[in-house]
């Protein structure tokens, strides 16, 4: 329908938080009003809510498409809608001031989208829209024409590896599970995305829930599971709503429940809400949680593929892994295997954040060099500062320095420098970030989220954090670096589950690449990046101070004195180095060293 007018409003969590619901309402009323006078608008204009396309920093994003020409607007608020409707929808002329810029296109054009391809294009709450983009075709094909063994072989041939972090070959895992002789098999989708700053799984479910369900149907058929669970965080209310909606729609269409697609195969999928424990993303803890136990990991072996939920063979795959499955079946294993690097096939969805111009959700082919991600997709470092490191793999990943900027981003590449793929978090750090402090930051998280079961993780991470804390507080001791290294290695080598095994990564990688920063903190009692307040001295430059008194008012311990319109002074014997004066001064007169 070429003369159609389509308005897409970004209504993922990011879009809604930026005012998407109000924008949506404004469009509804404005388009209705416009439709009274304009027959084309009334008959041909369709208003759509769509999922996240990744560039949440620019929300609310709105696409207006007339006769196939797409114009994308950024930072749209409800009060801007009347003008958009009047000038663009009715008048046919885009409002050029509000259109996205070149960076929007470099952000998207440098990506390769498989999983995110339909996000931002289809209405996630409508199964018909998913069907219109060949949805459920793969499931139907599998159930009508393929044997479970054929499906497993296809996934094996595609080279797909688990996207939750481990990177275990999906097809191989499925074949391990299917090889068991059991009266019951289970399939579980792990949507307990817990890494701070990661929102890959949430966006996929919010933007295209049916793709995940279709992937699960195919997986369930391959291993013979009649019951599936989606374990999702309760903190993802929109994703949960859309998932439940999608499950209901799929059931109504006969794609779930009994006799799927008339094939005689049965599958019911249940949603289980997680109660906010990071460790429940670990597969055995997740299984314990579904069983109603406290979410604590169990020793492997036995692996879930042999003895999982309720002791039955169980497959657990991540949201992104499942979302890849329908496309592999539709387009073929060879197509998928042609994307990516030698051992890591396909794409990876990454939550790109930190000191970078274009933050958001991106999808890149495996093996893309780090620098292309940071400087092409990400648009380079914010404020033209110097790149220092990139932290990948969530709180348990490592920090990768400048010298490895050409590193291909895939499972092997990241592991070779002491980091990991994890679920795909990527935090870019610049020259103003203190690496000791960064490592402390991540340890704070993993330490608090340790389930407390095994000794190295419960107490080891606590002691690592204590040592890091004393270093950034200027109380570091001779030998602390070696002690950190030794303890970190022991925690890594003897913890029960992935949480403890990977929690020391930030410590080990920052010591490996930024040892001089640790030494500066311990020996010279200086923070080279001027982040660790307790190691800084604050003073006021007389020639810059205009005597406004803002710093003195901000100081909670009355360490700053001075006459109005006269340069002020900081009494360092009183100063508690909180940094409030530095933040309060508008004339850059407060300095820290």
């Amino acid at each position, binding site marked *: 329908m070429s003369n159609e007018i389509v308005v897409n409003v970004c209504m993922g969590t990011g879009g809604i938080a930026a005012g998407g619901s109000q924008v949506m309402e404004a469009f509804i009323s404005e388009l209705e009003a416009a439709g009274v006078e304009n027959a084309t608008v009334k008959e041909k204009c369709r208003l759509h809510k769509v999922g996240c396309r990744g560039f949440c920093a620019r929300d609310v994003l709105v696409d207006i498409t007339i006769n196939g020409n797409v114009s994308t607007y950024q930072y749209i608020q409800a009060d801007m809608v009347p003008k958009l409707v009047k000038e663009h929808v009715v008048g046919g002329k885009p409002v050029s001031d509000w259109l996205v810029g070149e960076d929007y296109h470099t952000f998207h054009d440098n990506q390769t989208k498989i999983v995110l391809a339909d996000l931002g294009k289809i209405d996630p709450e409508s199964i018909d829209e998913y069907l219109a983009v060949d949805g459920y075709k793969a499931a139907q094909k599998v159930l009508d024409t393929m044997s479970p063994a054929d499906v497993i072989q296809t996934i094996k041939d595609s080279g797909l590896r688990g996207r939750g972090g481990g990177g275990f070959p999906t097809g191989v895992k499925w074949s391990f599970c299917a090889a068991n002789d059991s009266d019951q098999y289970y399939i579980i989708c792990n949507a307990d995305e817990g890494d701070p700053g990661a929102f890959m799984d949430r966006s996929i479910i919010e933007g295209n829930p049916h793709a995940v369900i279709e992937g699960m149907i195919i997986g369930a058929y391959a291993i013979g599971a009649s019951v599936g669970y989606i374990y999702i965080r309760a903190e993802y209310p929109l994703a949960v709503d859309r998932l439940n909606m999608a499950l209901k729609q799929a059931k109504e269409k006969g794609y779930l429940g009994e006799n799927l697609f008339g094939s005689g195969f049965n599958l019911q999928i249940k949603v289980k809400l997680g109660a906010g*424990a990071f*460790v429940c993303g670990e597969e055995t803890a997740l299984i314990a949680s579904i069983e109603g136990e*406290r979410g*604590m990991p*169990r*020793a492997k*072996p036995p692996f879930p593929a042999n003895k999982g939920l309720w002791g039955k063979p169980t497959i657990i795959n991540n949201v992104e892994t499942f979302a890849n499955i329908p496309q592999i079946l539709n387009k073929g294993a060879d197509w998928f295997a042609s994307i990516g690097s030698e051992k890591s096939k396909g794409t990876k969805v990454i939550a790109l954040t930190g000191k970078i111009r274009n933050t958001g959700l991106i999808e890149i082919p495996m093996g893309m060099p780090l620098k292309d991600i940071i400087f092409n997709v990400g648009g380079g470092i914010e404020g033209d500062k110097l790149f220092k490191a990139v932290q990948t793999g969530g709180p348990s990943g490592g920090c990768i320095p400048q010298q490895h900027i050409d590193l291909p981003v895939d499972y092997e590449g990241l592991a070779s420098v002491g980091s990991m793929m994890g679920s795909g978090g990527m935090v870019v750090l610049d020259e103003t970030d203190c690496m000791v402090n960064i490592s402390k930051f991540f340890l704070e998280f993993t*330490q*608090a*989220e*340790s*389930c*407390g*079961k*095994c*000794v*190295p993780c*419960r*107490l*080891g*991470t*606590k*002691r690592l954090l*204590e040592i890091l804390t004393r270093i950034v507080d200027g109380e570091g001791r001779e030998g602390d670096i070696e*002690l950190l290294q*030794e*303890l970190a290695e*022991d925690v890594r*080598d*003897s*913890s*029960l589950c992935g949480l403890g095994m990977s929690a020391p990564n930030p410590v080990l990688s920052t010591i490996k690449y930024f040892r001089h920063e640790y030494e500066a903190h311990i020996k010279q009692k200086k923070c080279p990046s001027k982040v660790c307040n307790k190691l800084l001295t604050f003073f006021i430059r007389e020639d810059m101070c205009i005597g406004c008194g803002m710093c003195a008012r901000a100081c909670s311990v009355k360490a700053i004195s001075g006459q109005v319109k006269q340069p002020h002074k900081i009494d360092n014997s009183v100063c508690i180095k909180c940094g409030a004066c530095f933040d309060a001064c508008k004339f850059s007169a407060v300095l820290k060293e």
Partner: protein
Amino acid sequence: MITVTVDGRDVEVAEGTTVLEAAKKLGINIPTLCHDDRLKPYGACRLCVVEIAGMRKPVTSCTTPATDNMIVKTQSERLYRLRRTAVELLLSDHPNDCMTCIGTGDCRLQELAYQYGIRENRFAGEMRDHHRIDKNPFVVRQQNKCVMCGLCVRVCEEVQGVGAIGFAERGFEAKVIPPFGKDLDCEFCGQCVSVCPTGALSGAIWAGKARMEGVEKTDTTCTYCGCGCNLTLSSNGDQVIRVTSDANNHNRGWLCVKGRFGFDFINSPERLTRPMIRREKGGTLERVSWDEALDFVAERFTKIKKESGADAIGGLCSARCTNEENYIFQKMMRAAIGTNNIDHCARY
């Protein structure tokens, strides 16, 4: 059967045997803290780590099933370092009060600290601060001594089927508590006390009594019911001060609240230790010999039987007696007295 090589020696074990069990069969002792043969493998303390050929990282021997031709190493520099670190970490969050601790001499952590020679602690730091005094006369909890081995939680769930305690909180704050952190309020079987490897759980009745010095151990059988659980009484002089049970007996070391804590009657001044006869209604009880007492009973039974018939006599026995004793009792009533009027609280 499969063959496993542990520290260069071969051993044949059944399929499904863990590496720890295989090593034990060879008499090789691997340190553990959270393991108990009677409970499911858990893998929390990480002391039983071993190296297995072909595996990148050390694994816990208590949870790893042995496979055919597996080559296991239970001692190496790396393993020693990992075990020592684990013990040192545990001690970094454990009060150093063995002098006055009830667990001394019966504490696996103390033993490990000695074996690994940990005097100074590289990881000294914040310690947990739990002060909760339960209002029950049986179990004392000193949670700052807890090593989170989970034995108490597991025995309560797996053996006793009660689930009176569980884990709460995360990370350093993780702890074992009754529901909602309230007072312990269970059947007080004390199984948790019996498996606790430290002084975190102890019997209230043991407090302040001898730990090791002058303590004599006597194996006996519980008199509370017909189960006949084996007990070991710890006594100091003529005072029984503690009851335990060996894991290698028919009751596998498990006891109930009565068997474990109900022993104060032994030394009670009110306890009857000699037979007494009240010769007439309203008369006083006078001490007599066993012979006189038995003669008296026999004489009266014969008289009653002669005057009113055997069915004028009935016998009630006790569930506290053994099966054999109950059998003999009914035999006596039926054969010697000649009546079927017999019963006891658990019925014949």
